[in-house]
C-alpha cells in the first residue's frame, strides 16, 4: 500500500476512527489494533513476507529477554551474536546474495574458471533493511543495558512494525519509540492538525516534485549516451530533487500519519539542500540512518577519539557501510566513498561541526558567503547523486566524462524532447518547494505554521487549497518510493 494511493487514503481514516473511537478504552487494545493494521498494511505488498517480519520480531523479542536474563556475560553475548547474526543473515541473503555470488562468479571467470551460479529469483522483502535495523538497535541497547528488555510482545511488535515507519523508516530507537508505545495516548488537536499538514506537504513533495522530476531524470539517465554535458547536468539536478522529494516526502507522510495516533517519530530530514558544508548535509539528510550508524558503528569503532588514522578509517567505514546499506551495487559504495572524501577534509581540519545552527536565522536571505557555501555543497551532492542513480560505475564515469567536457556549455539538447510548458511548470513547482522550505527552515517541515508565522485562517486554508490543486493538477505519474527498494 503506497502512501500516495487511494487505498492508503481510505486505510488511514478507518484506522484513525477505530483507534480513537473503538479501541480507545484500553492502551493494550490500541496497541493490538496498531499491530494488526500494520500487518495488514505490510501484507498489502506480499503477505508471504509477513512470516519473515514476524520471525524477526519474535527473534529480537526473545533474544532481548534472554540477554537480560543471562547470568553471565558469555551467555548474553551469545544471544546478542545469535540475534545479530540471524538478522544480518536474512538481510544479507535477500539483499546481497545475488551481488556477492555474481561478483564471485565474475572473478572466477576472469581467471578462466567458468561457473554458473544459482541466483535468487525473488523480490527483496520490502522494508527489510529498516525493520532489521530497528531490531538490531533494540538488541544492542538491551545488551549495553541502555534499556530493559521489553516484556510485552505486542508492544515490542508495534515498535518494530508500526505501519508509518515499517517500509522506509525513519529508523527508530527503542529508547525513543517504545516509551511512547507503552504510554496512554490522548488525542492532541494541535499535534493531529500538524500531522495532516505534514502529510499534505509530504504528498506535494512526492507527487508533484519527485514524480515529475523522475520523468526527466529517467529520460536522461536511461539514454545518457545520447545527451550532451548540459543535459546530463540537468538530469542530475532533476534526480537530486527527485530523491529529496521522494524520500523526505515519504518521511513527512510517515511522521504526519504517526502524529494522528499521538506518536512522534524521529525527524529524518532537516532541509539538507540548505547545508553549508557536507558535514552539515549529513546531519540533515536521512538523519535516523546517519545517527544509527554513528551510534552503532562509528562510536563502537572508536569514533573520532583516536588519532587521525582512526578518524579517517572510521569515517570511511560508516560512509561505505551506509552506501552498501542502500543496495547491492558498486554504485552505492562509490557514492558512500565519494561522500567520505568530501567529509574527511572537514574532519581533519576540525571544521565538521562549524554549522550546527539553522542557517541565516532572523534574515530573509542567506549572506553572499552562505549562498556560495550552499551552492558549492549542493553541487557536490549533485555529483555524488550521479553515482547513486547510475546503473554501474562505468555508467557514472561515462556521464561525468561528458558532463565535465565542452558540451557542458552547450544549449541542453534535452529541452527539445519535452513539452516546454510542462517543463516550466515543473521547474516552477521545484522553486515553490525551495521557497516554502526556506521560509520555514527553522520548522520541522515546510508547511508547519504557527499563530506567529501565519495567524490568518483564511490564508492558511488558501495555502492548503493551492497545495491540493498543485498535487491534483501537476502531480506526476504514480511511482513507487525509491527507498522501498532498500
Amino acid at each position, binding site marked *: 500500500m503506497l502512501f500516495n494511493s487511494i487505498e492508503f487514503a481510505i486505510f488511514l*481514516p478507518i484506522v484513525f476512527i477505530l483507534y480513537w473511537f473503538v479501541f480507545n478504552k484500553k492502551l493494550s487494545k490500541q496497541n493490538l489494533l496498531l499491530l494488526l493494521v500494520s500487518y495488514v498494511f505490510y501484507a498489502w505488498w506480499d503477505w508471504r513476507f509477513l512470516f519473515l517480519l514476524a520471525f524477526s520480531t519474535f527473534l529480537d523479542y526473545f533474544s532481548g529477554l534472554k540477554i537480560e536474563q543471562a547470568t553471565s556475560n558469555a551467555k548474553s553475548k551469545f544471544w546478542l551474536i545469535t540475534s545479530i547474526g540471524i538478522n544480518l543473515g536474512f538481510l544479507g541473503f535477500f539483499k546481497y546474495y545475488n551481488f556477492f555470488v555474481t561478483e564471485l562468479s565474475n572473478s572466477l571467470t576472469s581467471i578462466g574458471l567458468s561457473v554458473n551460479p544459482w541466483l535468487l529469483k525473488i523480490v527483496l522483502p520490502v522494508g527489510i533493511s529498516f525493520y532489521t535495523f530497528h531490531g538490531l538497535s533494540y538488541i544492542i541497547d538491551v545488551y549495553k543495558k541502555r534499556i530493559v528488555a521489553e516484556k510485552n510482545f505486542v508492544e515490542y511488535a508495534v515498535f518494530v512494525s508500526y505501519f508509518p515507519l515499517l517500509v522506509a523508516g525513519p529508523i527508530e530507537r527503542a529508547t525513543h519509540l517504545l516509551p511512547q508505545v507503552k504510554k496512554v495516548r490522548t488525542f492532541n488537536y494541535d499535534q493531529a492538525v500538524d500531522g495532516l499538514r505534514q502529510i499534505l506537504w509530504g504528498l506535494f513533495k512526492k507527487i508533484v516534485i519527485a514524480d515529475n522530476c523522475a520523468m526527466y531524470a529517467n529520460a536522461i539517465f536511461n539514454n545518457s549516451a545520447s545527451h550532451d554535458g548540459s543535459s546530463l547536468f540537468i538530469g542530475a539536478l532533476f534526480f537530486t530533487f527527485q530523491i529529496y522529494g521522494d524520500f523526505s516526502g515519504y518521511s513527512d507522510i510517515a511522521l504526519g500519519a504517526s502524529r494522528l495516533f499521538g506518536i512522534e517519530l524521529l525527524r529524518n530530514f532537516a532541509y539538507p539542500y540548505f547545508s553549508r558544508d557536507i558535514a552539515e548535509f549529513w546531519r540533515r539528510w536521512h538523519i535516523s540512518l546517519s545517527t544509527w550508524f554513528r551510534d552503532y558503528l562509528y562510536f563502537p569503532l572508536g569514533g573520532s577519539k583516536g588519532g587521525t588514522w582512526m578518524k579517517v578509517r572510521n569515517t570511511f567505514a560508516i560512509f561505505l557501510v551506509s552506501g552498501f546499506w542502500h543496495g547491492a551495487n558498486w554504485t552505492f559504495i562509490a557514492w558512500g566513498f565519494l561522500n567520505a572524501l568530501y567529509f574527511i577534509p572537514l574532519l581533519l581540519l576540525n571544521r565538521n561541526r562549524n554549522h550546527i545552527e539553522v542557517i541565516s536565522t532572523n534574515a530573509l536571505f542567506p549572506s553572499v558567503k552562505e549562498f556560495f557555501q550552499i551552492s558549492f555543497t549542493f553541487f557536490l551532492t549533485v555529483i555524488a547523486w550521479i553515482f547513486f542513480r547510475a546503473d554501474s560505475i562505468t555508467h557514472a564515469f561515462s556521464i561525468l566524462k561528458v558532463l565535465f567536457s565542452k558540451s557542458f556549455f552547450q544549449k541542453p539538447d534535452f529541452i527539445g524532447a519535452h513539452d516546454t510548458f510542462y517543463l516550466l511548470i515543473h521547474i516552477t513547482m521545484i522553486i515553490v518547494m525551495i521557497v516554502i522550505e526556506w521560509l520555514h527552515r527553522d520548522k520541522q517541515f515546510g508547511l508547519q505554521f504557527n499563530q506567529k508565522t501565519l495567524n490568518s485562517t483564511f490564508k492558511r486554508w488558501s495555502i492548503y487549497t493551492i497545495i491540493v490543486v498543485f498535487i491534483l493538477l501537476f502531480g506526476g505519474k504514480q511511482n513507487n518510493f525509491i527507498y522501498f527498494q532498500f
Partner: protein
Amino acid sequence: MKKFLKKCLVFLGIVVIVNLLFLFLLLNFAPGFKKVYEMSKFQNKDFDLIVLGNSMALDGVDANYISEKGIKTYNLAVAGNHVSTTLKLFENYLEHNKKPKMVVVGLSSAVGKSYLNPVLYHNPEVDFFYQPNFWQNIKNPPMLNFQWLAIDMIKILLSKEHRNATMENGQWRTKKVIPDNSSFNPNRAAPKYYDNVYLHKLIKLCKKNNIKILLVEITGSKKSQNSVPFVKEYLVSKDEKITVYNLNNFKIASELINPQTDWLAPDHLNVFGATKETQFLYEKIIQPNYTK
C-alpha cells in the same frame, strides 16, 4: 476531536469543491472536453457523414469543408482515442441519432500503433461522460484525471494562438504553425494491425446499418510517411478484405502539404493543412464513393 473532525470534513469539502469548479471550467474553457460532453447529449442529429478517429482526424479532417460541398458532416474524433472508444462513440451515436450515409475512419499509423493498438486503452474524457462511474471518479478525481486539460486551459489563458483556436463541427481548428523539419525515411515500415478486432466490429456495424465506411490513413509528418500505394487492399482474415486509402503516402503528402506552414505539431495538421487534406479527401475518396 470534534473540531478536528470538522476541519477534516471542511478539507474534504474543499477538495470536492475545487474538483467541481474544475469541471465547470473544463466545460466552459476546454473545447475538447466540451465537445465530448455535447456529443454524449446528441439526439436526432441528421449528419450525412461522420468522421471517426483520434487527434490526427480531429485536427486533420475539415468537417466545414465537406458540409459546404453539400454533405452534412460532423467530426466525431476525439484526441487520445483507441479504435475501441471510437466504436463505443459511434454505437452511442447510432442509438440516439439518425443513421449517417457514410463514415470516414481516420487511421493514424503515422503515430505508431496507438489507435489500432492490439492492447485496448481507455479515453478518460469519453469514459467520464459515456460510462460514468462513481468509484472511478473518487479514485481518480477530475483534477487528476484531466490534468493535461488544465495545462491546455493555462495555454489558452496565456497564448493568443491557443485562444484563437476553435472547435467547429467537431474539428479542432488552429492556425498555430510548427514547421515539419523532419525527413522522409524510405525504409519506414508499412502500417499493420488492420486486423484489429474493434476495427472489424466497426466495419460490421456499418455494414449492418448499410453505412458506407471508408478507412483513410491521415497524413503524418515527413518522418512518419510511407511508400504504401494510395489505395491498397488488405486481407485481414480468410475471407475478408479491407481497402485502405493512404494519405500518408510520401508522394501524395509532398504535393498536398507544405511542411513549413501546414503543421501545428508533429503528425498533426493545422487548419491550413487540414483544408488541403480534406479537399483531396473529398475529391478523391468521399465524393466518388458517396455518389455511388
